[in-house]
């Protein structure tokens, strides 16, 4: 049996080395005394896994080693071992179960994802996603404690972070961002993660500048268990039920895993936010022979949820509710949300894990993904804006003092919510009146769809040439087809609509062609389910080739990697639009880009406790497809000023790993050159959808990360993390503004935003915590978090010459208009308490978490409205919109496992 050492390699595979002596051990559950299989065992830079009997072994040299055993659900075990010339046989290592804290952590991060209703069609979630059992003490603390305040590690946008699931890349081909909600609710299936921050090396892909994560869903790697949990919360959902099953490796070589869940509530903490999310995961793996294992994974998270709006401060104050949501209204006594997101994005992945010989292993992957992603929205035709917080409906817009007072009073006392929320009955009535005169419906709900279909294949190898020299590399290809269109979702009692652009009708008076959205069938009466408005397909091919060489010595590791990428894409218009009759249907120009990158890094192992690690990389990337088109919904018109972006990044860390204490100090600096940003918005003045593309955006992200933990006693551990960042714009980008209906010519202007702050994340954060756990499986966590230097997203148009035209030199208005708003700093206090029991063969866990105990409602972000009054320059006319954090929330979970 000793010889039958089955190493359950994850994608990184395993490290077997043949030195003079062996280090052996067995890992067991401290409570049940049963061996634990498939547990990651790290010896300095080597990594292996325990076999079916919980055993592991390494060949070792005579020196000092740090042995670390990282197991999900257990406390990490660390021991410093002095190896002499003989074999070392360690005592049985008993891992102490940590109750269910890690899965709870996921739940906390998950609820803050994507609940906001941004204008963009499909946004990724800018939540730090690299939740994994890494030894990075700063990020472990920051990810868990600061996710609720939208802290992004090093300020990187999520499009710079590459996420793979079992070898399939999850970043959206169109906006570059991974969308974690696509596999929401599958915490157990997605538990096995490997990831790095920044430009560190990874064995499964070349990686991005912001980090790389691979989630391994191999059934053989899932914990053998039957588990059911129920959670009660007052965040975005009230109830969550999860079930997970792992068969372990069966005698016939098969492994199976199942994960299913439902998260739901009629209304989350924010009014009108219905939530109904299901999730499923099915995994199977068959060990064909000693060389091949084939794994299948199928998963998806179908959900339907009502979105939250952002609003102006005036609306929050009038309603006395910082979570005021203008998206809903009563319909016959029930809350109805106009913005319902309905998505289901199933994925199918097949892996072939091929161990060619002792030195070479290859992982081949085929993946396919289908996405149905739609968000409903009210639309209206030559009728009053139905959104209750439209600026003209607010008291601040009223000139007449008496009317202002009456409106203020009506906002503050609105028992039937027909003023402060959507008045559905009125929308229906107006449509009924329209029916009575044979007119088209005046108000409808449309669903904007962003569907896709994609296919990918990849092959990744690892070749262990010698004990010291390893080569990794791979090939990756993806074909992406994204289809964007809208359908009529609900006529709200009306009978039909015409597919005309009502604003073109006004802007091109007397022109009977320009207003038509679909020249193929111009006078069609659109009914529920019909596609209308716009319909286009984006097609792209992406191929990547990469390689890496790693040299491992006793006192240092060094690696170098490089990649070459090819990307080509085009737009295929499926509707001939009257505004772009000769440039909307059919294929656009094809854009092609060749990109490359090189990364280098190393670790100097001063001793088993002290390390110095450094990484550097220079990467180029193709522009985001959507940023190349100025009116992507209805035209093939392209911007030719958007080019390849380049990133230069480096970091250096000092790491201490002791038996009682860990610490890491990192300094990093990243340059982003020639980024492009797309801001799509509805222009109130010109009454048309408007796109602003910023090109030549340069930024620098620099800062320090300091993290540490200290085991005060057997029961108490103190943790602390401090992040000091400085994320700034360093160029004056050019803004191209394009009016979708073409009523005005495109304009370009210089944006004076040099040294502006990057928004969307606090730049300075601090977190300290105290953890208590005892042998009777009680644990208590207390955390205090502080953040500062959180800035409002700014409107580039307000930083142009036009915006401050006609103001005298040194006019104080100039500063008022151009200054970037800093949001208040914030402080939160969180606590968790948990206990677990073993009753015969059942493990029962309960834990209770309260976030933001003080209940302070903090502005967690926001943006300046794109509309600006160039005449009066009155900023109060179109004030910024803000988001507020939830305030005090709780999460209570019960789990039963056998």
């Amino acid at each position, binding site marked *: 049996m000793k010889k039958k050492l089955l190493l359950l390699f994850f994608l990184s595979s395993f490290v077997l080395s043949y030195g003079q002596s062996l280090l052996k051990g067995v890992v067991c559950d401290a409570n049940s005394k049963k061996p634990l299989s498939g547990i990651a065992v790290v010896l300095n830079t080597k990594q292996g896994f325990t076999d079916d009997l919980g055993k592991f072994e390494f060949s070792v040299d005579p020196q000092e080693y740090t042995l670390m055993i990282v197991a999900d659900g257990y406390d990490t075990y660390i021991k410093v071992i002095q190896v002499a010339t003989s074999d070392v046989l360690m005592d049985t290592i008993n891992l102490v179960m940590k109750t269910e804290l890690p899965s709870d952590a996921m739940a906390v991060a998950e609820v803050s994802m994507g609940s906001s209703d941004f204008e963009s069609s499909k946004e990724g979630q800018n939540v730090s996603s690299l939740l994994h059992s890494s030894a990075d003490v700063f990020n472990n603390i920051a990810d868990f404690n600061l996710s609720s305040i939208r802290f992004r590690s090093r300020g990187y946008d999520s499009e710079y972070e590459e996420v793979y699931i079992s070898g399939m890349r999850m970043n959206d081909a169109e906006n570059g961002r991974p969308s974690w909600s696509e596999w929401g609710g599958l915490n157990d299936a997605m538990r096995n993660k490997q990831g790095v921050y920044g430009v560190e090396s990874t064995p499964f892909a070349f990686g991005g500048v912001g980090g790389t994560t691979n989630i391994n869903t191999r059934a053989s790697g899932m914990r053998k268990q039957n588990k059911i949990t129920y959670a009660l919360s007052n965040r975005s959902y009230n109830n969550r039920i999860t079930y997970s099953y792992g068969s372990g490796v069966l005698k016939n070589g098969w492994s199976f895993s199942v994960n299913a869940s439902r998260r739901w509530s009629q209304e989350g903490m924010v009014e009108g936010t219905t939530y109904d999310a299901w999730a499923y995961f099915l995994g199977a793996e068959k060990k064909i022979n000693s060389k091949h294992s084939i794994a299948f994974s199928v998963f998806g998270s179908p959900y339907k949820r009502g979105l939250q709006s952002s609003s102006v401060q005036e609306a929050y104050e009038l309603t006395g509710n910082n979570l005021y949501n203008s998206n809903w209204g009563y319909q016959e006594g029930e809350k109805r949300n106009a913005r319902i997101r309905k998505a289901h994005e199933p994925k199918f992945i097949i892996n072939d894990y091929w161990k060619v010989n002792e030195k070479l292993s290859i992982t081949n992957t085929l993946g396919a993904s289908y996405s149905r992603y739609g968000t409903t929205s009210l639309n209206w035709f030559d009728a*009053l804006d139905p959104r209750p917080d439209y600026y003209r409906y607010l008291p601040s817009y009223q000139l007449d003092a008496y009317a202002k007072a009456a409106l203020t009073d009506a906002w503050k006392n609105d028992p039937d919510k027909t003023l402060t929320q959507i008045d559905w009955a009125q929308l229906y*009535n107006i449509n009924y009146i329209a029916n009575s005169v044979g007119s088209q419906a005046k108000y409808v709900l449309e669903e904007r769809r962003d569907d896709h279909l994609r296919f990918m294949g990849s092959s990744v190898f690892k070749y262990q040439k010698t004990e010291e020299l390893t080569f990794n590399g791979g090939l990756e290809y993806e074909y992406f087809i994204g289809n964007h269109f809208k359908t009529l979702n609900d006529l709200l009692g009306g009978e039909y609509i015409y597919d005309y652009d009502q604003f073109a009708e006004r802007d091109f008076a007397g022109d009977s062609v320009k207003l038509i959205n679909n020249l193929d069938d111009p006078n069609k009466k659109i009914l529920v389910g019909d596609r209308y408005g716009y319909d286009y397909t984006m097609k792209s091919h992406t191929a990547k080739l990469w390689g890496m060489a790693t040299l491992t010595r006793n006192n240092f590791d060094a690696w170098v990697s490089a990649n070459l990428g090819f990307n080509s894409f085009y737009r295929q218009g499926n509707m001939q639009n009257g505004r772009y009759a000769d440039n909307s249907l059919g294929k656009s120009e094809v854009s092609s880009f060749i990109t490359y990158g090189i990364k280098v890094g190393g670790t100097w192992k001063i001793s088993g406790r002290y390390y110095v690690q450094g990484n550097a990389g220079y990467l180029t990337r193709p522009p985001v497809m959507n940023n190349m088109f100025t009116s992507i919904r209805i035209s093939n018109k392209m911007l030719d000023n958007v080019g390849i972006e380049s990133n230069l990044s480096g970091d250096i860390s000092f790491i201490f790993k002791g038996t009682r204490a860990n610490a890491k100090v990192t300094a990093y600096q990243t340059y982003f050159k020639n980024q492009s940003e797309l801001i799509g918005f509805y222009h109130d003045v010109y009454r048309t959808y408007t796109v602003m593309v910023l090109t030549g955006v340069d930024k620098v992200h620099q800062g320090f990360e300091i993290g540490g933990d200290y085991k005060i006693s057997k029961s108490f551990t103190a943790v602390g993390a401090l992040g000091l960042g400085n994320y700034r714009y360093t160029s004056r980008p050019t803004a191209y503004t394009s009016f979708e209906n073409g009523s005005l010519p495109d304009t370009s202007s210089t944006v004076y935003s040099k040294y502006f702050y990057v928004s969307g994340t606090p730049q300075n954060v601090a977190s300290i915590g105290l953890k208590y756990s005892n042998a009777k499986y009680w644990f208590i966590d207390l955390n205090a978090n502080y953040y500062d230097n959180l800035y409002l997203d700014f409107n580039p148009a307000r930083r142009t010459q036009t915006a401050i035209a006609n103001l005298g030199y040194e006019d104080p208005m100039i500063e008022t208009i151009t200054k970037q708003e800093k949001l208040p700093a914030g402080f939160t206090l969180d606590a968790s308490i948990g206990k677990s029991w073993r009753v015969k063969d059942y493990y029962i866990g309960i834990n209770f978490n309260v976030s933001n105990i003080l209940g302070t409602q903090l502005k967690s972000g926001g943006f300046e409205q794109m509309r600006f009054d160039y005449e009066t320059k009155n900023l109060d006319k179109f004030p910024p919109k803000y988001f507020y954090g939830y305030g005090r929330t709780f999460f209570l979970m019960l789990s039963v496992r056998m």
Partner: protein
Amino acid sequence: MKKFKLFLGIIALAGGFTFSSCVKDDFDTPPVLVPEAGFESNISIANFKALYSGNGVDSIAFDTIIQGIVVGNDESGNIYKSLIIQDQSGGIEIKLDQSSLYNQYRIGQKIYVKCKGMYLGTYGGLVQLGYLYQGSIGRMPEIFIKDHLFLDSLPGKPLVPALKTIATLSPANLSTIVRFDSVSFDDGGARVFCEQSVSSADDRVMRDKNGSTILVRTSKYANFASDVLPSGIGSVVGVLSIYNGAYQLYIRDRNDIINFQPDSNVYLLNHKFSALAPFTQYSVVGSQVWTASTYGGVNFAQMSGYQSGYFANEDWLISPALNLNLYSNEKLKFDNAMKYGSAGDGTLKAYYSVDYLGTGDPNQATWTEFTGVNYSTGNFTWAQSGEIDMSAINGTNVYIAFKYVCGTAGVPTWEVTNVSLQGKKL
């Protein structure tokens, strides 16, 4: 196995709970709600308007309720932030600070207005119901509208416009829907209802058979503003208004232009002599020539043999070449005036030629004098030539000319303008 069964039980229980918890997010269509005001009016619109003191703004302190049928709204954009309602007694314009009013207040919709708390005032002589704005009558803020305007039932049949003639309009017809038959627009077929270059609105002259006119006022924001005025004769419907003593008509949309029979008459010539061109002059005798001149706002071509003395002259004023083969039923008209001569003294005569070459001495060509022309009798009194029938004349290069001849005694001054030649295009 037993423990597993228990576990299965837990799963079944949890599953049952999961599947049975439903999140409601689908909605039925609510039933059609037929609005009902639930109260009656207590004064007619005419009597209500008569309550207005006649100057300034009057606030309405009593529970006054009027009712009426909507006859004008903002659907086409020609009427802005106003409704016009009408009952048997008359109509009134209600000024409301809300856009897209027509979605609720369709033409034919019956509404009740609780006037207490509102204001009566005038603008340009038109009595309006609204709200106080800087001491004058203004629009009622949106927040108050629901307290004053009440729908009653769904929109009914639109009111039939009362047939009127321009000359017999009276103040009682203001803010009501009226119809005029057999009318035409000046510049019909030539100009649009309202140019986009004007600041807000523009007027067009509408004319009836008797020659009476009324201004038709159109906003640049009306969806028919860029449409060409109909040519020919037809019927026009609109809401009657007044501005500083002059009646105005607001068309609600294109459907208010009814049965215009296109008039195929076109102008081959329509010259008012702000300059001589496209006419040319040719001097055969004497150094005095035809010139463009103006007096009292009227432009004309002028010729006189007098210039600090009397000089013999023969001078021609010749039109551009006209292709009469393309037209039928050509009618020539012009206005003329003279002084210092006697009626019908023959010093000015109108001719045409089919063989003139376009340049050079007109005496080289054959000219035929028009007969039956009415000439001025002197004292610069404008005379209309009367309709001169040219339908019998054909040719691709036909010229019309005015020939002035004088000796050194009895030297008159002649003026000619408004030379128009209309024809039906073949």
